[in-house]
């Protein structure tokens, strides 16, 4: 077994950390307060080239392996949670299908500028009545001439209100349920494609999230991304695995930052004549956090390694996501208790970590659905014994 990152990966981590420290962290509070997409920061960050993390070098990407990309997401999570959401959407889901299945013309038109940050992409799974339940997708794609006509509404779309293109999950045959779903590329300016209401979120400010409307939107055949209609869900497993581990490591980063702030506070804040860090009940919070945090990170990087090794790891990715994001809720809660009443003041950072942490519960599949799937898988195991 090997529990070390390579020297190269460690170096990569320091490079990303440096970029996050210099470009993003000084603006965290301002981004949170403005709750608007930080276009200037986006352009500066895009110029560093990280938006092509997982794409081939011929399109301007860096073709990073899975573990290296997870190091990037973890370090990015130390900055603004909202900005990280916009960036990860662009790198992972927003460009995944065009990068994997798009024609050369689509890649040149959409992927290359997206890697440069000049075009913003997103993916549209969720609707008002379906999210984790993809089988409930009601957006339709109907065959017409040499293409497809899309109708429906998508909700909770990160980068939606500012996107230049999106990958839309729609059903081509409602009678086939999950087997009738496909992905289509829709670009801004296509007649019938508009942006609806914007959602005002509790946290993750700085990423803009909203509704996208498809009203008789015609796209040509080449915009069907994948090997023919009906293959959509089969194609999502690989990317959802990465999304879940990415979410797990974002949660680890939020937890770590919240507790690092709390540590500093506990060492400085005095009560009854001594710093509160000297009280056992406060110390126990740090000891306990350390254990849960390490466990969460190990699960996440193990899952990342399994993806990289092309091992079957759908459940490990769910476990990592579920465990790390629950750990994160506990960490921001304990950190806010250490801050006491000050955690309730907008002037202190704890309230922001507390709000931002909540989103990790829902992105990449909500826990109630994941736990149901995991429980069913556990019950199917021979003898019920884990390895």
């Amino acid at each position: 077994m090997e529990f070390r990152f390579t020297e190269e990966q460690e170096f990569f981590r320091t490079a990303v950390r440096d970029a996050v420290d210099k470009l993003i962290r000084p603006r965290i509070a301002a981004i949170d307060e403005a709750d608007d997409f930080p276009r200037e920061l986006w352009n500066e960050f895009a110029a560093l080239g990280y938006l092509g993390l997982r794409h081939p070098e011929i399109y301007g990407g860096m073709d990073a392996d899975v573990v290296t990309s997870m190091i990037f997401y973890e370090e990015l999570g130390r900055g603004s949670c909202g900005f990280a959401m916009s960036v990860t959407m662009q790198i992972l889901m927003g460009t995944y299908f065009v990068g994997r299945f798009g024609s050369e013309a689509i890649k040149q038109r959409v992927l290359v500028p997206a890697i440069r940050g000049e075009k913003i992409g997103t993916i549209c799974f969720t609707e008002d009545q379906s999210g984790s339940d993809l089988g409930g997708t009601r957006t339709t794609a109907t065959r017409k001439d040499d293409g497809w006509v899309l109708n429906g509404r998508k909700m909770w779309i990160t980068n939606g209100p500012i996107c230049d293109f999106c990958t839309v999950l729609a059903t081509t045959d409602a009678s086939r349920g999950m087997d009738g779903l496909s992905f289509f590329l829709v670009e801004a300016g296509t007649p019938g494609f508009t942006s609806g209401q914007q959602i005002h979120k509790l946290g993750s400010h700085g990423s803009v999230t909203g509704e996208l409307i498809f009203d008789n939107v015609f796209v040509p055949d080449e915009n069907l991304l994948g090997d023919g209609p009906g293959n959509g869900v089969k194609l999502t497993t690989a990317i959802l695995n990465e999304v879940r581990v990415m979410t797990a490591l974002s949660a680890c980063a939020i937890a770590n930052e919240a507790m690092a702030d709390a540590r500093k506070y506990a060492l400085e804040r005095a009560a009854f004549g001594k710093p509160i860090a000297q009280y056992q009940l406060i110390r126990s919070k740090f000891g306990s956090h350390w254990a849960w945090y390490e466990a969460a990170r190990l699960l996440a990087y193990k899952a990342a390694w399994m993806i990289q090794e092309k091992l079957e790891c759908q459940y490990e990715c769910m476990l990592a996501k579920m465990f790390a994001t629950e750990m994160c809720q506990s960490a921001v809660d304990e950190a806010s208790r250490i801050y006491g009443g000050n955690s309730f003041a907008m002037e202190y950072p704890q309230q922001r970590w507390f709000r931002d942490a909540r989103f990790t519960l829902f992105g990449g599949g909500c826990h109630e659905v994941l736990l149901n799937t995991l429980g069913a898988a556990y019950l199917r195991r021979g003898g019920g014994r884990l390895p």
Partner: protein
Amino acid sequence: MTLKIAVLVKQVPDLEATVEIAAEGQLRIEDRYVCSFFDEIAIEAALAVKAAAPDTELAAFSAGGRRAVDALRRAVAMGIDQVEQLGDESLDGADSLGVAEVLAARLKAFEPSLVLAGKQAGDDDMAAVGPMVAGALGIPHASAAIALRVDPAAGTVELDRAVEGEVLTLRAPLPALVTAEKGLAVPRIPVVMRVMKAMKAKIPNVPLTQLGLAPPAPGARLRRVRYAPPPSRPPVRMLSEPFPANVDELVRRLLEAGALA
């Protein structure tokens, strides 16, 4: 003349790394290291010279073991293609003079027209290796430059130093060694293609024997005797009196502590 610039770099503990006293003269340092802040400024200043005079040859050198390699990777990520690790782990216990001897031995062969380094290392703040290298090479040395102007045609370097609110301008014939102060340049954030290049780069090593220095490496003639922890800060005391009584109480306590005359 075509310029040849050598940049001297060192890896030092990250400002956020935990540092504890392990034993007399020894520290226990968390394994979080970065390229020294002032050395990054020197790298950026060297890149600026090359940007103005594209035929300039740039190289970065670092003496020591694995950490020297990390510092050099940073130099590659920032834009320097030619880098060399000098010596090995045996140098990690060397003092400033020992490190300077190794660097100078390599620079004698490299024959730089300009040597740039940070004005001091981010860990021990000795500010010694740069001047010592200049001494060993027998070339002029000027420290803490906040501006640098190289004139290859005239074969001179001119630099500004901040002195008591004034700016002092110095000029030296090349070759010369200049150390970098904050303000000379703002280190860039490396772009990802350079980061990838740095990650994959094979950092060449020059063994001490090749430099004519017989192992063991130059030892520490300067010995660390002990580290003393800084005095612990008294805890913050909150004044419980309501306003305006707390102001009177604050003044009384400040007078008592001798903080107010």
